[in-house]
């Protein structure tokens, strides 16, 4: 239910995968992070994501396990892409499923904030001015 990969993913397939966990699911929430084409007024030519192999997967797994323990949800799936990503393309998807929508919304919001906080993944932005490793958490 947790993956880091170079290739794109299908949002529909990922939602279906999470939905298959149980027939008690009554609400599914998905957060999809995509590559915007502008940063601080500069046009982004491309993005590159790097991760710490092993530790990044472990931290995403930890986020899923903590979400399943601390929120009233039934399943959570996380996919994050690495490598070169063009503007408009998918970066990250978090899908949460619960009996009721509110639990799914809360777990999803918590999970993306936690991913940004603890997952060793880095974004490099290339603009016409050059390359910069992003250091903030917007």
């Amino acid at each position, binding site marked *: 239910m947790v993956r880091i990969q170079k290739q794109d993913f299908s949002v529909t397939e990922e939602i279906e995968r999470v939905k298959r966990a149980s027939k008690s699911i009554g609400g599914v929430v998905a957060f999809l*992070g995509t590559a915007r084409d502008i940063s601080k007024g500069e046009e982004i030519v491309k993005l590159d*994501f*790097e*991760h*710490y192999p*092993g*530790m*990044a997967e*472990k931290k995403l797994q930890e986020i899923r396990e903590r979400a399943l323990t601390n929120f009233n949800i039934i399943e959570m799936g996380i996919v*994050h892409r690495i490598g070169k990503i063009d503007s408009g393309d998918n*970066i*990250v998807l978090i899908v949460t499923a619960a009996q009721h929508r509110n639990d799914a919304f809360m777990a999803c919001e918590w999970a*993306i904030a936690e*991913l*940004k*906080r*603890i*997952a*060793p*993944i*880095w*974004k*490099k932005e290339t603009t016409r001015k050059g390359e910069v*490793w*992003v*250091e*903030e*958490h917007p």
Partner: protein
Amino acid sequence: MVKVKFFAMLKIKAGREEANLAAPGSISLEKFKDILKKDFPGIAEFIDRKSVMISVNQEFATKDTMIKDGDEVALLPPFSGG
């Protein structure tokens, strides 16, 4: 030997992805940082930054973490995933 891994901006500053350092016995994170700063003066100013985290064997280190032969240490600049 202790394997040290550099990522993102620190990989560029250190000019390499990995290094192997000799660690005498079991040493504190602070002592290990001192060795790193001496061996990699180009990134010395980043090593003490609060925003740069250090992991040992793929878990976040604290000031009480001890580092010994065979460990894998990584210098982690601020994350920007998601």
